[in-house]
Structures are given as structure tokens and as C-alpha cells.
């Protein structure tokens, strides 16, 4: 079930909210858990048992780890729990990729290929696997006590707002809220506003741009003129941001309605003046995970410059691979890793010399080219497309042919870059983070309801609404 579907918006969500607020506080976690299981079972019926079984197994493994008397036993249970989490991820997400490449190699060597039945990818596995890992490691490190009740742990993993597309909530950040959280009507409303903002980002911006981007990228890329190529990749850049950040906003908003405070996942990423900064602003929860559970364990920057660069490179290669089992994602990770290393070597200093505005523009261009690698799975097509970006073969752009597309691009551009200016930042803080007064609610609530109905209208009139981050 996706958030931008009628079933979710008109039936699941109202039914859940009604039940959630009708029952006494002590039963709310149970209501949330049951609805979360229904949510997952509705979208991925064949995987719900795997999800539940792995969650139960993980809970008891961590419990055993916590109770273990010796360090060796602790390590053993920790390793088993991590193998379980990452093993599932490896099998479901990467087995097909591995066998395909192995067969390619065997074929090249003239050997018989391995027979393999393709494995389907359970939705959200990348997210809930990583959350499980944070639970195991945070408990192992002694940062947090393990959950006492199985249902509380299941709730942490399966909670529907962040189950299938994040944000990746670290166990330590939410453990206390699962057992005890405050309910305030005002927070509920602000959660609703945040949800509606996310829905609008998804339906009114990302989907409108996405339809045109898909059409353009499905065409013959080798004849695309340079202007159209740049506009197309810029459009995809915005589509991806508004799609994914829209989903995160909806998740954060839903969490807030229920009394949770989920971590922010985006902070005006396209306003970054370097790729290093971009990764502090884009998918922040994934980067926090990579930093805490991969980069630092690999040695971080404590083992000399060469090792630091290697660690960075490995982190980004794996981060790319996390996004999808395909060579284009690996290449995309390597591409970003390369720029991160270069920034540490010399590029960062050069950015400082040229000033913020040019740095932002250059970073944005680097990110856009990166998204071309990310979007186009066929590497030869990627090369063709990037070739068109620099072919300097310009043709007139017919703005009048797609007014809604270009208008939405302008809107997306505005909302992406408004944070660069102090007034924009102030405006964003006011909308997202300030507690509203009664007057504020009186103004914002009707706008939110209108936007909700308008998004619902768009969803039903246009009939195109797949989430991009679902497949990761």
C-alpha cells in the first residue's frame, strides 16, 4: 500500500486514526502494530511471514546477546543477528544480481550457466533490515537496553509510516518513544499539515514531472538535443527529490500524529556547496547509518589519509549498491565517492575560493549527472545520454507544448532553492518546525484540507502515482 493511494488515504488512514485515538493509550501500540501488519500484508502478502519471522528471531537473538555472560557469546549472537538481517537483504536483493553476473562470466568462459529462479524483492527490505541492524549494534554497544516486549520491538521494525521507505530510524532515537510518548492535539494537526505537504510534493510536483521525464527517457536518447537533455535530467533531479522527500514528510507527519518524533531525512540538499555537504543534507538517516555502522567501524578517518579515502570510497560503493542491485547504482556510488575524495584532496578548497553561489551551481550539476547514472539502468544508454548533455547540439525548446510540466519545474526549482536565502529558510522553519498558535491553525488547517482534497483530485484525475523509492 502506498501513501498516495485511495485505499490508504480514504480507508486505511481514517480507520487507523479512529481506532488509534478511540482506544486507551496503553493499547495504542497494539493498534499501531496490528494496522502496520495489515499495511504490509496488503502490499506484500507473500513476504509478511518472512518479515514477522525475522523480526521475532532477531528479537530473541538480541535478548540472548544481552543476557550472554561472556564477550565471545555476545559476539556470536551479535554476528548471528546481523547475518540474519543482512543475509535476508543479500538473498532477496542481491542474489539475482549475483547469479546474473556469474552466469555472464561463465558464459564468457564458455561454461554452463547456473540455473536460477528469480527471487522477488520484498518491499522495504532495505529499510527494515537496516533498522534491525541498528537495534542489534546499539544494544551490543550498550548504548541502549533491548526492548522488553516483543510487540514493542515489532512495532519499532514494522511501524507502517517508516516501514517501506524510511526514514531509517535508529533504535536509540526512538526506543523511549515506543514505550512512552506524549499526545498533543496541536502536534496531531502539525503532523497532518506535514503529511499534506508531503502528499502535495509527491502528487502535484513529482508525479507531474515524472510523467514527462519517463516519456522523454523512454525515447531515442541519441537524438535528444542538449537543451532537452539538460531539462530532462534537471526534471528528474527534482522529481526524485520531491518524490522521496515527499514520502519522508508523509512518514514524519504520520509519526507526529501518533506522537512520535522521527528524524528529518532532507535539508534542502540542492542548496549544498559541495558533494560532502550534499550528503549531509540528502537522505540524512541513511548517511547517519553508514557513518555509524560502516564508516566508523572501518576506521573512519583515524587511520591516515589513504585509508580515509578508501573508507569513503567503500561506504559510497556500498551506499550505491544499497539503492539497487545493478551496476548503474554501483557506478553512481563510485561517482559520488570520487567527488568526496576529490573534495578532501583539493576541490573543497577551490569551492571556498570561488564562493557559495558558483559552488552550489557546480555541485548541482555534479549531482544531476549523478542522477543520470542513477536513473538510466543501461550503462551504454547512460553514456549516450551524458554524451548528449555535452554535445552542444541545441534546438529550440517549445515551452508552450507542455505548460504544466514547465510550470511545475519552475515551482520545483523555487521550492528547491528558496532555502538558499534567509527569507526562505525563515519561511521553511515557520512552516515545518514552529508550533502554531490558534490563529496559525485557523489559517493553515483549511489550506491543508483544500490541498489534501486537491491532491486527491490530482491522484484520481491523472492516475499516475508510483513511488520511486519503493524499489530500494
Amino acid at each position, binding site marked *: *500500500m502506498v501513501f498516495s*493511494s*485511495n*485505499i490508504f488515504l*480514504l*480507508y486505511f*488512514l*481514517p480507520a487507523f*486514526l*479512529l481506532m488509534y485515538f478511540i482506544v486507551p493509550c496503553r493499547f495504542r501500540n497494539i493498534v499501531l502494530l496490528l494496522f502496520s501488519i495489515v499495511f504490509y500484508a*496488503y*502490499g506484500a*502478502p*507473500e513476504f509478511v511471514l518472512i518479515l514477522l519471522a525475522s523480526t521475532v528471531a532477531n528479537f530473541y537473538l538480541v535478548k540472548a546477546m544481552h543476557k550472554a555472560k561472556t564477550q565471545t557469546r555476545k559476539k556470536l549472537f551479535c554476528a548471528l543477528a546481523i547475518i540474519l538481517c543482512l543475509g535476508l537483504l543479500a538473498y532477496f536483493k542481491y542474489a539475482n544480481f549475483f547469479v546474473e553476473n556469474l552466469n555472464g562470466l561463465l558464459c564468457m568462459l564458455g561454461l554452463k550457466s547456473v540455473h536460477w529462479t528469480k527471487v522477488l524483492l520484498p518491499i522495504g527490505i532495505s529499510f527494515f533490515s537496516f533498522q534491525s541492524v541498528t537495534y542489534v549494534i546499539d544494544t551490543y554497544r550498550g548504548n541502549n537496553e533491548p526492548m522488553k516486549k516483543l510487540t514493542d520491538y515489532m512495532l519499532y521494525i514494522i511501524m507502517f509510516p517508516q516501514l517501506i521507505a524510511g526514514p531509517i530510524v535508529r533504535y536509540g532515537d526512538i526506543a523511549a518513544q515506543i514505550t512512552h510518548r506524549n499526545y*498533543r*492535539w*496541536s502536534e*496531531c*494537526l502539525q503532523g*497532518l499539515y506535514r503529511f499534506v505537504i508531503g502528499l502535495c510534493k509527491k502528487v502535484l510536483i513529482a508525479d507531474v514531472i515524472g510523467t514527462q521525464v519517463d516519456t522523454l527517457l523512454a525515447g531515442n536518447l541519441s537524438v535528444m538535443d542538449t537543451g532537452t537533455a539538460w531539462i530532462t535530467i534537471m526534471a528528474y533531479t527534482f522529481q526524485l527529490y520531491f518524490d522521496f522527500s515527499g514520502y519522508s514528510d508523509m512518514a514524519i507527519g504520520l509519526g507526529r500524529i501518533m506522537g512520535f518524533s522521527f528524524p528529518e531525512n532532507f535539508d534542502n540538499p540542492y542548496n549544498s556547496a559541495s558533494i560532502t555537504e550534499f550528503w549531509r543534507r540528502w537522505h540524512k538517516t541513511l548517511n547517519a547509518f553508514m557513518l555509524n555502522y560502516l564508516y566508523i567501524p572501518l576506521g573512519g578517518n583515524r587511520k591516515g589519509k589513504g585509508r580515509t579515502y578508501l573508507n569513503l570510497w567503500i561506504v559510497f560503493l556500498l551506499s550505491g549498491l544499497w539503492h539497487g542491485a545493478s551496476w548503474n547504482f554501483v557506478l553512481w556510488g563510485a561517482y559520488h565517492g570520487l567527488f568526496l575524495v576529490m573534495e578532501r584532496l583539493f576541490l573543497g578548497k577551490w569551492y571556498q575560493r570561488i564562493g557559495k553561489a558558483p559552488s552550489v551551481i557546480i555541485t548541482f550539476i555534479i549531482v544531476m549527472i549523478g542522477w543520470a547514472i542513477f536513473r538510466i539502468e543501461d550503462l551504454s544508454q547512460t553514456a549516450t545520454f551524458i554524451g548528449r548533455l555535452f554535445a552542444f547540439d541545441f534546438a529550440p525548446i*517549445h515551452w*508552450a*507544448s507542455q*505548460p*504544466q510540466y514547465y*510550470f511545475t519545474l519552475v515551482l520545483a526549482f523555487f521550492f528547491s532553492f528558496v532555502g538558499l536565502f534567509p527569507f526562505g529558510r525563515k519561511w521553511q522553519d515557520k512552516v515545518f518546525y514552529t508550533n502554531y*498558535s*490558534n490563529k496559525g*491553525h*485557523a489559517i493553515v*488547517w483549511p489550506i491543508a*484540507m483544500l490541498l489534501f*482534497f*486537491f491532491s*486527491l*483530485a*490530482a491522484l*484520481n*484525475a*491523472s*492516475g499516475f502515482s508510483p513511488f520511486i523509492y519503493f524499489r530500494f
Partner: protein
Amino acid sequence: MKKNFCKILCFVTMACFVLVFVQEKWRPFEPKPLAGVNFTTEFPAFTLENYTSGNLQRDLEQYSKENFGFREWAIRLYNQYSYSCFNKTYCHFIVPGKDGYLFYTEAFSEYYGIEPLHFYKTYDNARKWARKNVGMMNKLRYVLKEYGIEFLCFMAPDKAEIYSEYLPYHEPPTPDVIHTAAYYDSLMTAIDFPHVEMTKWYQAMKDTASFPLFPKRDTHWRYSAVFGYDSLFSYMDNLNHFGIPDIHVNKLIKLDTMYPENDEQTLNLMFPIGNDSPKYRADITVDCGEGCRKPKVLFVGDSFIWDLETYMPWKEILEDVEIWFYNKSAFVGFEKEKHPITEINRLRSILNADYVVWYSSGYQWSRASYNFVEDALLLLCVSDSLFDAQIPWVMDSLQHDVCEDSLRAHAIKTLKNNPELIPGLDGDAMPTIRNTQAIALAQQANAIANDKQWNVALHIQASRTGRLFDDILDEEAENVLSGRPLIRQEIQVDTASIIEFEVGKLMDQWRNNEESIKFLENKAQERGVTFEEILEADARWVVNEKLANGELF
């Protein structure tokens, strides 16, 4: 205070959600229904199989999209936003033009020459098919001519061609595009195939006409169609001097009412665009003097034909009419009795006509004749046994990776679409084969059906035996051809039985006509009698009037 205010807003929010649900279930508010064809999904039944396969979820989402509360308002709201802000519609067959003009999407594509790509993939392929189709049309004309039937084409104008200055922006077309109608026109001109091309005539008339040639928000030509029909009937008469009545279009009279904005309704907007197209009525007189004969015409084509009934006194011009709409549905007679094309005796219909008119607006030419020409050639030239004999070698020439049954079905379809594969219909030469037996039978059946008394006799036999009239007609035709005793000889047909037959026929017609039902129901209520009583009384009155005026025989 703040807490209470927020609490109230939260409750109102929940109430809004509940209201959507209430509206879906009980519809306390009745919004204006959406126009256009709405495909409806049944509420999906839960089975483990469709749940695990994801079909249940897909169908539930679709069902919800089609039924959620306030759906009509939601869709109209977004359509209004798209139309007002971006001149964009979500009605897939309407393209909004400038100044409130609406065009058909296909007509828009045809204007830019890209429409054939949807059917033939490449322009060269489209040209190849057009040449083949015109060749087949010429063969059909040749065959029909043998039986005294004229086959001709009528090319109605596209609004996009006439009011191109109101078309929305489109990237300039590449030089190799093909304007299908114009291409067909050139091919038919090259071989002297009889056809009437109206686009150029309408373009020439556009600047001087004192009335718009097309309503702003309707794709059809409507009232201005009378000039097209006038040209068509004159042309038909010139072909063989049949003696078609003279039509005089005296003038178009502007009416006080506005033209119903048909296509605008399908946009499903919240606020109407506004109606600024006046309605017109044509002042037409029809002269049928000495030597004048009304023809029987079979029209095969698209929706542009319906204005013939609306704007022309067609009963004064034609003796009988049959309309094969897109070669799928047959509308028989002036009462337009509707049948699927496969359920009528097509060969008889073709042979019963004086003219067969393939009738199409510009953008429909990419669809050729919806296989009418191929079907007609097969009916006229290829016997069932000859057709069956071709199937095995067509099967041999097709791919063998499918099962026998589907291969056979594929072969039959291939032959039906490509009659030129059959010896005698192949090559550029005119067809050398005829379906002689079937033609003789059909002609004989037509002769019987056109004989009033004989026709009534067979109808009486049909009602006595409970068999279909068409079956009895075929049997009688065979009786004639084989010299067997005739059914007609067994049935006594007198004036009384003809009257009873006509009364019964009329009553059936009225029972199947909504307007007649309404009219008769009101009349029955006024007079305090039952519907059946008034139905029979009125039918008897009409038939007696006909009898008195000498129209019955």
C-alpha cells in the same frame, strides 16, 4: 483554549474523512454525474489467489477510484485546474485549442501528419497500406458495378483542417509525414476512383460563409453538413444518372438557441466554458419530379453520418438506408434498428443497395475501411469452400510455434484481412472469381423481401413456426432457385392479414423507442386507458391512414 481549538479541528478533520465515506455509501449529496464512458470495476471478491497475486489490491484501488465519495467534484476540480491553467484536458480524445475551440486528438494528429504512425509504425508502411487499400477498393467497385451498384467514397472534412489556426501548439512535423486523407485523395484521383473530397471545398467556403462551419466545441460538422450531403447526392446522381431527387439548400437559419456543447461535457469541468455557438437550421427543399427515383443507400463509415438524419430530410431523398457504423453495428432503415454487423446478412444488404458509400472524416482514413472492403470482396467473390481451401497453405506459411487451433484462427484472420492472398483476387488485375451461388441466393432473397405480399406471407410463417424471418427468407429463396414448392403458396395473404402484420410491426417499433413509449404513456394516462390499448389503437390508426392514402401496397 488552544488545546480545545486543536481538538475541535482534529475532530472536524476526522469528520471530513467520515463524510467522504458516507458520501460513497449513501450519497446524501448528489453531484452532477461525469460525462463520457465510465468503465466500472466490480467490487473484487476476496480469494487467496487474487490476494497473493496482487490482483485484489489493484482492483480495490481501481474500485475506490471509481466510487469514492465526492469523486465527481474531485475530478471536475482537477480538470478545471488543468484546463484553466494549462489548457490541458484529461479526456483522452479531446485536445483543447485556442479561444475555447475543441478538437479530436486524432484529427489534431492527422493535421500534423502523425496519425498513421499509431497504426503503421512508419510513414512508408502507411503509404504502402494506403496504396493496397485503394487497389482493393477499386476491385470492389469493379465487382459491385457488375450488379448495378455504385461504390464510391465520401471524404468529410476535419475541423482541424478547417480551423487549423485554433489548434494548440505542436512541434513542427518532419517532412516525411503523411496526411492520410490527402494521400488517399491523390491515390483515388490517380485511378479515377469516384470520390467526393470536401475539405478543400470547406476551406474555400470558410472565409465567405456567414456561419461557422463547425461549432466551436463539437468535432462534427453538424448543420454545415447539409452542403456536404448536397454535394454527395449530386455526385452520386452524376455517376449513373439514377434520378436522385434534387436538393436545394436555400439557406442556414440562425436560431435563438445555442448549440449543445457536446464535446465540452466530456471535459468534465467544474465551470462550463460558456456557450457562444448559435444553433442553425437548414432550409432545404427536395424536388422529385418526373423520372425521379429515390435510391437505396448503404453507408459504411464514422459518426459524421448521423447529421444526415438530423439536418436533412433523408426520407424525402432516400428510399431506404442502412448505416454500418465503423463496420461494427448495422443501423437498418430509417428507424435505425441496431444489430451487430455479424448478425445481419451482409451480402443481401450490399446487393440490395443502389449505392454503397464508404464515408469517413479525414483522420479516420488511417483506419482504412475497418475491413469493410475486404469483407465485401470475400462475400462477393469467395465461396466458403474456396476460403476453407486456402486455410491450410496460409497455416503453412505462418509460424508453427502455436497450437493447431490458434494457428487456424490466425490463418482465418490473416485471410480475412488480406483477401488478395486468394487466387483470383490477387495481383493488380480485377477479380476473376465470384461467389455465384451465394449472390444468386441473396439477390433472390432481396427480390422476395421487396415484394410486399410475399414478405408478409413469410412473416406470418415465421410467427406461426417460431423461426427467424431471415431463415425462412433464405429457405424460400432456395425454393425458388431449386424449383421446390414455395412457402408463399401455403399462406393466404389478404388485406386483413397485411394490416395485422403492419399493426404488429408498428407496435414493436414503438415499444422499442423511448420517445414513443413516453408519448404513449402520457396519452394513455390522459385518456384513462392502458398503455397496450393506446399502443394498438394508435398503430391501427396509422396503418388505416396508410391504407386510405394508398401507401400500404
